[in-house]
């Protein structure tokens, strides 16, 4: 529309955002929670003057930096990269609203980087007080960056009282922000603990006593985290807009996933309580890996749900999944989707100049005069710019499959009543003529009903032919 659409066959380009965002969150939550736990534990170790604990924490810090500063930071930038490619209009809008939020975030990134390196490289060379302070500078900076970014992603799910004439603060303090901050704070502590178990299980394999200490102390952070996840998650659920609640209830996949998240969180909680908290020291590498994978599964699923329930919007009530502004929809419906999009219009002008009227706009009547083959091709353009954000052709959520066995009429009905067929689809944003073109295109893709299925009395084709006397005739040919 406003921007060229990036077509990634079978996958759809927004899936790349999901991919990067998910792997990023595993590390970025650790970057925050791990910072807090490390600062807290280093302070403790200095207080009780436990040299071996300090040594362990130092080795953990290197692991932490290698993961967060490299992989975490670059995949974070990677999300930017990808949203600009696959959701350009939403990104443009978010950056206009939150540019200074991101600029502030950047200040804290710089603080994180500088403090993390000093914390690690000057370990043992700075006096204890300064070293602790630098650890806490990291923790606070990382935490504030979590708060800032959460306000922005929360805004996408519910813009609250924000309207385009209102500035960043109204957008930032939306009904979703605080519950999500609580949930993510919890997730960050929980996940950080699982990383520590994982690392300690290997690193301190033969130092039973120290490992027991590390496990026991870490489990307190972890249980606090688990509690926060539960509180934040529940608060979040009661605060999500009705459409998101309905999406959770209506989409079977999301439904199953959210049960899975709760189940995984509960299992982790129990394992924590009876494991490292009550009986520290028994976590072996196998268990640590299991814990870790459960934590990753719960976090990944949680984030997936958070993204999933946003449909049909990318920014609630502001930008829809097909990359148009909610406010432009009425105009697109009356003057045409192809006509309203910069790139669709340019494409039509280059390939079908005959459909333009003297004022330079696409004329529906002329569109309908195109030969059938061309109508299918125009339908494809509509599909790319209106549907490909969520549907591929034959791969992920493929329309060829979704419309298997459908008649043209059925397809046409769904196309013209998209939002009624499923409220998590945007409404049809084009004209009736355009709906016709898209229908032609979808009908050309739609898979036939699977053969061999029957309902009612069994019919043996050969017997049937025998009965109406066509068998011999055909056989004779």
């Amino acid at each position: 529309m406003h921007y060229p659409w990036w077509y990634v066959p079978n996958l759809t380009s927004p899936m790349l955002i999901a991919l990067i965002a998910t792997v990023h969150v595993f590390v970025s939550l650790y970057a925050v929670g791990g910072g807090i736990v490390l600062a807290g534990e280093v302070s403790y170790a200095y207080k009780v003057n436990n040299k071996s604990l300090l040594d362990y924490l130092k080795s953990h810090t290197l692991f932490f930096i290698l993961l967060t500063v490299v992989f975490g930071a670059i995949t974070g930038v990677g999300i930017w990269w990808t949203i600009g490619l696959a959701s350009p209009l939403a990104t443009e809008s978010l950056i206009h609203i939150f540019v200074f939020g991101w600029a502030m975030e950047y200040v804290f990134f710089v603080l994180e980087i500088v403090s993390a390196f000093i914390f690690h490289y000057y370990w043992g060379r700075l006096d204890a007080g300064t070293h602790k302070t630098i650890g806490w500078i990291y923790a606070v900076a990382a935490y504030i960056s979590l708060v800032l970014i959460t306000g922005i992603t929360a805004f996408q799910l519910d813009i609250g009282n924000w309207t385009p004439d209102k500035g960043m603060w109204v957008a930032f303090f939306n009904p979703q922000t605080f519950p999500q901050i609580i949930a993510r704070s919890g997730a960050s502590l929980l996940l950080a603990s699982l990383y520590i178990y994982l690392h300690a299980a290997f690193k301190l394999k033969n130092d039973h006593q120290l490992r027991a200490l590390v496990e026991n102390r870490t489990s307190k952070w972890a249980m606090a985290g688990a509690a926060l996840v539960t509180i934040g998650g529940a608060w979040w659920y009661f605060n999500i807009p009705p459409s998101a609640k309905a999406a959770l209830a209506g989409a079977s996949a999301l439904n199953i996933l959210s049960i899975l998240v709760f189940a995984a969180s509960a299992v982790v909680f129990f394992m924590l309580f009876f494991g490292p908290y009550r009986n520290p020291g028994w976590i072996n590498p196998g268990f640590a890996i299991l814990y870790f994978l459960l934590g990753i599964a719960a976090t990944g699923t949680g984030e997936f749900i958070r993204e999933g329930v946003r449909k049909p919007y990318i920014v609630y009530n502001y930008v829809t999944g097909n990359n148009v502004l909610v406010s432009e929809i009425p105009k697109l419906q009356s003057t045409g989707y192809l006509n309203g999009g910069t790139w669709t219009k340019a494409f039509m002008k280059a390939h079908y100049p005959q459909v333009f009227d003297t004022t330079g706009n696409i004329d529906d009547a002329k569109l309908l005069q195109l030969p059938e083959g061309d109508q299918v091709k125009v339908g494809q353009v509509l599909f790319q710019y209106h549907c490909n954000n969520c549907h591929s052709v034959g791969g992920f959520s493929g329309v060829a499959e979704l419309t298997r066995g459908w008649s043209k009429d059925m397809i046409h009905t769904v196309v013209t009543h998209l939002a009624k067929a499923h409220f998590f689809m945007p409404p049809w944003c084009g004209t009736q003529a355009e709906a016709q073109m898209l229908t032609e295109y979808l009908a050309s893709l739609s898979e036939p009903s699977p053969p061999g299925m029957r309902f009612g009395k069994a019919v043996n084709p050969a017997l049937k032919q025998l009965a109406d006397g066509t068998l011999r005739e055909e056989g004779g040919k």
Partner: protein
Amino acid sequence: MNPQFLIGPVSPLGSPAPFWFITFFKVLGFILHMIPMNIWYAGMVLVAIYATFGKNHSLELAHRLSRTMPVIVAVGVNLGIVPLLFTQVGYYQFYYPAGILMAHAWFSVIIILIFAYYGVYVYSLSVRKNKSTKFALASAWISSIAFIFIGFLFANNFSLMSNLNSWIHIFNKTNVGGAVLGTGLNTSDPTLIPRWLMMFGLAMTTTAVFIAFDAVFFKKRDTSEDYKRWAGKFALILYVIGLVWFAAFGSWYIFGAMDKSVIAEVTAHPLIYFLFGLTAVSPGFVLVTLFVQRKGLKKGGVILATVLQVVTLSLNAVSRQWVQNVEIFRYEDISKLPVNTQWSPMIVFLILFVIGLAVVGWMIAKIAAVEKQAANIS
């Protein structure tokens, strides 16, 4: 097709800051990014070459550079966020389409960067542990090549931003039903190659100054006088090579590749002669400063060279911005788009920026004190 057709609509939200503010922070951010970026861009090539073929001082150079490289990359990547943010807010109508037209290549930057960065760490840790392996050496080579390739991709995107004829070309060639495959590159643009290679020359000059800086200010305890002398000479030679390289590709860019209409428009402004003149002569001052110290680096002299090099980079960044604006204003005067300044977030940002700088300053002062103490003891 008229290229104007491909420019998307203006955001109804209005720009959150005046155009000058956006440009200022874009350029400032780019300067801050360019310093570390230059050092890894040319520096990793030196590391790879000298780690493989170097002896004595040149091997020591490779080791010294690689020890600081992880920090340099981390800081540089971070500082790159700022210009990118302000590019997206001010130049979105041009930045997003360019990226999308070459989406696969642009997306791959992230993947390549992760490998390049871990490669830097692998080699750096091997030096720290005094265990050089074939794997570590290969990592250094892979990183250096990866960085240069990333430079190529950046040159593509940023030259594509202001070359709308290329958009048409790529759009026509790589679309499926009007949606782009994202497999384009701006290779039909004659400015691409000189723009890409130019930066390597500039990077060599910055790295040269950094080598001098490193010899004088870092790890004083184990820096021999001999190495310091060698580093001074080496920095001078590298600076000269970088400068010649930069001048060669810069001339190709300006006189051989740039659109005549852009040149005409750029040079229509009298101030530009002054700016370009300064940009052209500024590295000369650094060169003289290094030349004077060819027999021995001095603290004051190195600081002067560093400051002058930052000035050189700044002039470069300003000139680039000037040209980019001229190129883009041919299509649309984006400095005149509606503005809806977000004052209070802007002020909070500026305050946090100052506080952030102060905290960074405090931390650096702390480690400087530690280093000084260590130097006094030895």
